[in-house]
C-alpha cells in the first residue's frame, strides 16, 4: 500500500525553520508563504525522485537534501531584513501605541452608541446614567448594559490582542506586559460623563476624563490586568504541561 504523501512529509525540518524565522523577527505572513512554497517544492521534488525509481522514503530524503540544509534555508530568509515585522523592529512602538489606538477606537464607538441610546430611549433625560432599576429583559436595559460591557471589556480585549501578537511572533512577554499596564491604568482612571445641560443647544455632551481616584481604582486596575493576562498564563501552563520533558 503506498505511503500517503502527508505521512511521508511529516518529519521535515519546517517546524524548526518556522520557529527559527519567527524568533528572528521575520513577519508571520512571510514565514507562512516561504514554508508553503517550500512545501510545494518538496512535493514536486519527491515526485521527481520517485519517477527516477526511488522508493517513497528515499525520494523524500533526496528531495529534502535538494531543497537545502535547514541552515541555508534559514540564512536565505534572514538575509532579507525587509522581511522583518514592524513588531520585531519597533516593539516599543507597537506595544505602546497600538493598544492606545485600539482602545481609543473601541471607546469612541461605545460613546457613539451611548449617545444613540440616549437619543432613542431617554430623549428627555438630562443624563443617560442612573435611571432607576429596570427589568432585565427591558430593551433599554439590554442596550445600555451591552454597551457598558463593551466599554469596560475593551481594555481586556485589546490586552488579549497584544498578547496574541506577542505569542504569534515569539516575542518576550515583557512587551505585552507593558501594554497591559498601560491599558489597566487607563481603564482604572477613565471616567465618562454625560450631561445635556452642559451644552446650551440641548444635544447633550459626553466626555471622558482621566484622573487617579482613591481606593477602588487601584483594585480595578489590578483586576483588568489579571483578566487580560489570565489566558496567557493558562496557555503557558498548558504548553508547559503538554510539552515533552
Amino acid at each position, binding site marked *: 500500500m503506498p505511503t500517503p504523501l502527508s505521512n511521508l512529509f511529516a*518529519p*521535515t*525540518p519546517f517546524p524548526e525553520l518556522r520557529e527559527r524565522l519567527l524568533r528572528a523577527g521575520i513577519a508571520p505572513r*512571510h514565514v507562512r*508563504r*516561504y514554508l508553503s*512554497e*517550500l512545501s*510545494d*517544492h518538496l512535493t*514536486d*521534488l519527491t515526485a521527481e525522485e520517485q519517477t527516477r525509481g526511488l522508493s517513497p522514503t528515499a525520494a523524500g*530524503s*533526496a528531495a*529534502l*537534501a*535538494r*531543497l*537545502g*540544509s*535547514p*541552515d*541555508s*534555508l534559514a540564512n*536565505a*530568509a534572514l*538575509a*532579507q531584513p*525587509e*522581511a522583518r515585522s514592524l513588531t520585531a523592529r519597533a516593539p516599543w512602538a507597537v506595544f505602546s501605541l497600538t493598544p492606545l489606538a485600539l482602545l481609543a477606537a473601541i471607546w469612541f464607538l461605545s460613546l457613539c452608541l451611548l449617545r444613540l441610546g440616549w437619543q432613542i430611549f431617554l430623549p428627555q433625560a438630562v443624563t443617560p446614567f442612573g435611571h432607576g432599576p429596570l427589568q432585565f429583559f427591558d430593551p433599554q436595559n439590554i442596550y445600555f448594559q451591552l454597551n457598558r460591557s463593551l466599554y469596560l471589556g475593551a481594555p481586556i480585549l485589546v490586552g488579549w490582542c497584544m498578547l496574541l501578537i506577542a505569542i504569534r511572533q515569539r516575542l518576550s512577554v515583557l512587551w505585552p506586559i507593558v501594554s497591559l499596564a498601560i491599558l489597566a491604568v487607563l481603564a482604572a482612571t477613565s471616567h465618562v460623563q454625560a450631561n445635556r445641560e452642559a451644552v446650551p443647544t440641548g444635544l447633550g455632551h459626553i466626555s471622558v476624563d482621566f484622573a487617579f481616584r482613591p481606593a477602588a481604582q487601584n483594585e480595578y486596575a489590578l483586576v483588568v490586568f489579571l483578566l487580560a493576562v489570565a489566558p496567557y498564563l493558562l496557555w503557558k501552563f498548558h504548553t508547559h504541561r503538554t510539552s515533552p520533558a
Partner: protein
Amino acid sequence: MYSPAMAPRETNPSFMNGVPELLILSLLQQAEMYGYELVHAIRDRTGASIALGEGVVYPVLHSLERDGALTAQRKPVNGRSRIYYSLTPTGSRRLSDLTDTWTTLTSSIQLVLNGNPNGAAHAHPTL
C-alpha cells in the same frame, strides 16, 4: 529525516552574491514561472554547474517582489495551486543594469586571469 550529510555539494557562496537574482530576472524575462520550474530552468541552462539549495530561491523571489521587480500570481495548475512570478518594467530595468555590471565584471576578471598587465586600465572604474 533530513541529514546535512545528504546535501549535495553547493557552489561556493562567496562567488554567488547577486548571481541568483541575475539568473532569476533573466529567466523570467522569457516566461513567467513558478519556483520549482525556475530552479529546473537554472539547472538546465547552466548545465547544472550552479548548484544551490533549491529552497533558497524563494527568499530571493520574495525580495524581488517586494522591490517591485516581480509580480506573483497564484494560479491553479493540474489541481494544485502554484505561485507564478513574472517580470515587471522595474524588473526589466534592474536586469539591464545587472547584466551591464556582470558583463563588465566578468570581462575585467578575464583580463586579469589572462595575465594582461594593462587589463585594469580597460576596466570600467564604476565597479
